[in-house]
Structures are given as structure tokens and as C-alpha cells.
């Protein structure tokens, strides 16, 4: 069955992608047996399905995601956690004693696992990876760019950590916490992340980030590309 796009072509909502409704994947919809794009994105074929990989868009929680959130309310049924201003998830608590032992206050930042997400809402759970983050710079990146920020098997994020000497925690929801030995190194990490976000789809990005961030760390060039936290 033919497809009507070149691999990685930028497609727009309503653009015809395929005549075979069985090939409809992410970011597409089927009408009258044909597959169309539903978002702006790069069209690609993965496992025989036609997918549109979006450039920008809301975070959609999936079970197992490790997210970073901000405690926004403490309630008898659990702790409400803001996952970036769009979604509030609930971390269920067994009893008051457990709540007290976590010692969380409104405004605290936590790293936590998504237990489930559906019509009833988003629920978080305490597991061995749960932790309260005590210091660092919190920033938001476009959630759709998170996979690029992490890179293949963590290559991009590990490279950033190595050059800047910063500890960088990335939530699947796009919230990121950076904690480093000096402001210069933290700013370098932020600038690197902003570069990845801006040019997520450009070629040779890893080398570009490496060169740019290295120069920032060594103080060779001025900053200013860092943008907002």
C-alpha cells in the first residue's frame, strides 16, 4: 500500500498519509478508510504503522513514566502534585503516618512514578525511585523534546552531565532539575538544554551541543543563549 509522504517529511493536520486505515499510528486519524495527520509533525513509518512525531504538544502521562512535579496541595486522600501547570496528579497515601514521614510541604519538588492515567485522573505511587529534590534550578522543556534531551540510551544527557559536572534530573513531563558545582556550569547546562530544545531535529546535534557547552564551561564565549529558567 502506498504512502503519500517522504520519510521524516513535515506534515500538517488533514494531510493524507496513507490509503490503508490499518496503518494509522500516533498523531494520525482515519476517515473514510484513509489515514490523515492530526498534528504538525514529522511523518515516519515505525513497525509498519504511519506515525506523526509531534514537535510540540501537551504531556500525556503513561504508566511507568518518571516525572518531576511540584507539591500543590496536601489532602486527606493524598498529595496533589502539579506536573507542569497543565495536569495535577494525585500521590495516594495509605495513612497519616506515611504522609508525615514524607515531610512534604506545598512548593516542594518531587521525582515520582506515574502509577496510572485515565479517565479518572492521573495517579502517582511511592516506589524505590521516589525522592524529594532539595536543591537545584527547575526548568520546563517542551515535553515532546524530552526523548531528544535524553538521547539514545541516555547519550545526550550523560554527555551534558559529564561536561558540566552538573547533576541533571529529567522528568518525562518536561520538568528538569539541574544542580551543579557553580552558576557558570549550571548556566552552561541550561544553555545546552535550550539548544537541544530549539534544534531537536537538526543534524549533528550531539557534536554541536558538545562544542557549545564546552565553550561555555571554559568561559570562552559569553552566555545569553540560555533563555529563561
Amino acid at each position, binding site marked *: 500500500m502506498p504512502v503519500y509522504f517522504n520519510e521524516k517529511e513535515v506534515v500538517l493536520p488533514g494531510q493524507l498519509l496513507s490509503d490503508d486505515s490499518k496503518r494509522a499510528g500516533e498523531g494520525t486519524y482515519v476517515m473514510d478508510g484513509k489515514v490523515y495527520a492530526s498534528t504538525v509533525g514529522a511523518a515516519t513509518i515505525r513497525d509498519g504503522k504511519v506515525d506523526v512525531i509531534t514537535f510540540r504538544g501537551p504531556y500525556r502521562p503513561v504508566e511507568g513514566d518518571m516525572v518531576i512535579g*511540584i507539591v*500543590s496541595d496536601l489532602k486527606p486522600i493524598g498529595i496533589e502534585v*502539579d506536573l507542569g*501547570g497543565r495536569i495535577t496528579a494525585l500521590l495516594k497515601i495509605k495513612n497519616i503516618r506515611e504522609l508525615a514521614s514524607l515531610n512534604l*510541604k*506545598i*512548593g*516542594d*519538588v518531587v521525582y515520582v512514578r506515574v502509577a496510572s492515567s485515565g479517565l479518572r485522573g492521573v495517579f502517582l505511587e511511592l516506589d524505590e525511585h521516589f525522592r524529594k*529534590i*532539595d*536543591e*537545584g*534550578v*527547575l526548568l520546563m522543556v517542551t515535553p515532546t523534546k524530552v526523548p531528544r534531551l535524553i538521547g539514545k540510551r541516555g547519550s545526550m544527557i550523560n554527555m551534558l552531565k559529564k561536561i558540566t559536572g552538573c547533576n541533571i534530573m529529567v522528568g518525562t513531563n518536561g520538568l528538569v*532539575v539541574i544542580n551543579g558545582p557553580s*552558576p557558570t556550569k549550571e*548556566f552552561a547546562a541550561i544553555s545546552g538544554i535550550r539548544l537541544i530544545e530549539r534544534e531537536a531535529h537538526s543534524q549533528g546535534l550531539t557534536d554541536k551541543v558538545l562544542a557549545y557547552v564546552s565553550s561555555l564551561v571554559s568561559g570562552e564565549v559569553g*552566555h*545569553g543563549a*540560555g*533563555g*529563561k*529558567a
Partner: protein
Amino acid sequence: MSFLPIKERSFAVRIMNDKIYKLLQQGKRIDERSPYDFRKITIQTNVVEKANGSALVSMGGTRILTGIKVELGTPYSDRPNEGIFSVNAELLPLASKSFEPGPPDERGIELARVVDRCIREGKSIDLERLCLVPGKMVYILYVDIYVLDYDGNYFDPSVMSAMAALATCTIPKYSATGERIEGEYMKVPIRDIPLSVTIGIIKDKLLVDPCSVEENSLDTSIVIGMDSTSNIVAMHKNSPGHIPLSLMESIINVAEEQIGKIRAQFMEAVRIGQEGR
């Protein structure tokens, strides 16, 4: 009734409070500025042809559009010899997720009144020259300010865009009988150009022109308006919290110095705008 301020979140992120203060202690800011620097400022005038005067000012990620409409009307009875100068401000919901649609809320009203105070109290506009027939007919200047994009501190770019719009405004001339004198225009009678600076305070540290992330972490902040000879023409503490009296002298010094720095850029933009008219 005044409600709790609706910020991006109704609470500050704790680790960011710590981080912003620690950076200040080292003379740094979260967006890599120095403590007393303004963000990058751009000023465009005459952006809306249907307005008698207009300006679009951006200060970092905050963008303000001001337009002026001139009408004829009756003066206030207690000021029969003066034209009317009316400032309104609206925080448009497209500027931030913390702005709600609806009539101007207390923040919009506060913004309009602060801008009005900076301009009026400095006697920056000679309102008597906007009078056509005492007690009967005067020019009314409606200065309407819209916040288009909001990343903290809408006060300073608003004062700036209002002044830029006023300085490049052309008023259609009318005769004493209220007839339009075709083809004749006049400038707004401006005596002085006030500008403002917003200074945030965290413990013992000061910072100029806070961005939205910083605003959430400030102990308090104050807007200071100054004219071209560094007279203070308006002050307005615009958030809860204390200002130690011991800090006041350095606050005024910082204000004078920083307003001086942006004034040259402002005057240049206005000069270009006036030539374009």
C-alpha cells in the same frame, strides 16, 4: 474585595527561592543577568495606524502595546482649564495563563494607576494646552495599555510604551467650535519624560526588572518613577512583604542609575518615531 494574587502558581517552588537568593549572593541572576540589569528592551512606535499614537515595547519576554485615541469632551468641573488624561490597562489572557478574561481586575487597575501616577504627578503633560474652551470643550487622551506577553514586570515597559506613544502621538486639531481643522495636527505637550524601574527585594539583596520566575520568589518589590532630572515622581510598593528602611537609600540610587541607562535608548527610539510621522 482583594483576593490572593494569582501567580503562575499560587505558591512558589521552594528550591527556586533558594537558588535565586544564592545566585544573588554571588552577584548573578537566573537568566544570567547582573542584579541591576534590565532585560533587552526594544521600542517600536507607530505600530497601529488607527491610533493617534502607539508603541510596542518589549522587555525580555514581556511585551506591552499602548495605543492613544484622542477625542473631544467636557472637562472635569473642578479642572475646567485642563484636558483629560485617562489611562487604562488590561492584562490580556493571551499574555499568560495566570490572566483571566473579563473586565480589568485589581492588577490591571493597579497597573493603569501606577502608569498614570508616573506621568501625571511628574506634571509631564501640560494639560492646560489641551483645553479648547474652558469649562466646555477639551481634548481627551485615552491611553490604553495592553499586556500582550507576560514574563514578569509589566510596570516598566508599560510606562515606557505609554511615554513612547505619547511622544509620537499626533492630535488632530479642532477649532473652538469643535470643527476639525483639516490637515492640522499638534503634538502632545510633553514637559518631561518620566520612566520607571521595578526593584525586587529578597532579604538584603536588590534586583532590577524581575522576570516571572524571580517575581514568584521575591520578598517584595517596588516601582519607582523618575523624571529626566532624577526627581522621584511616583513610588508604588506592588506586592506584600517588608522593605527595610535601611535599604531605601540604595534602592533610590539603583533606580537613578538604571533609569539613566535606559533613558538614552528610549530617547533614540522616540526620535526615530517622531521622524517617521
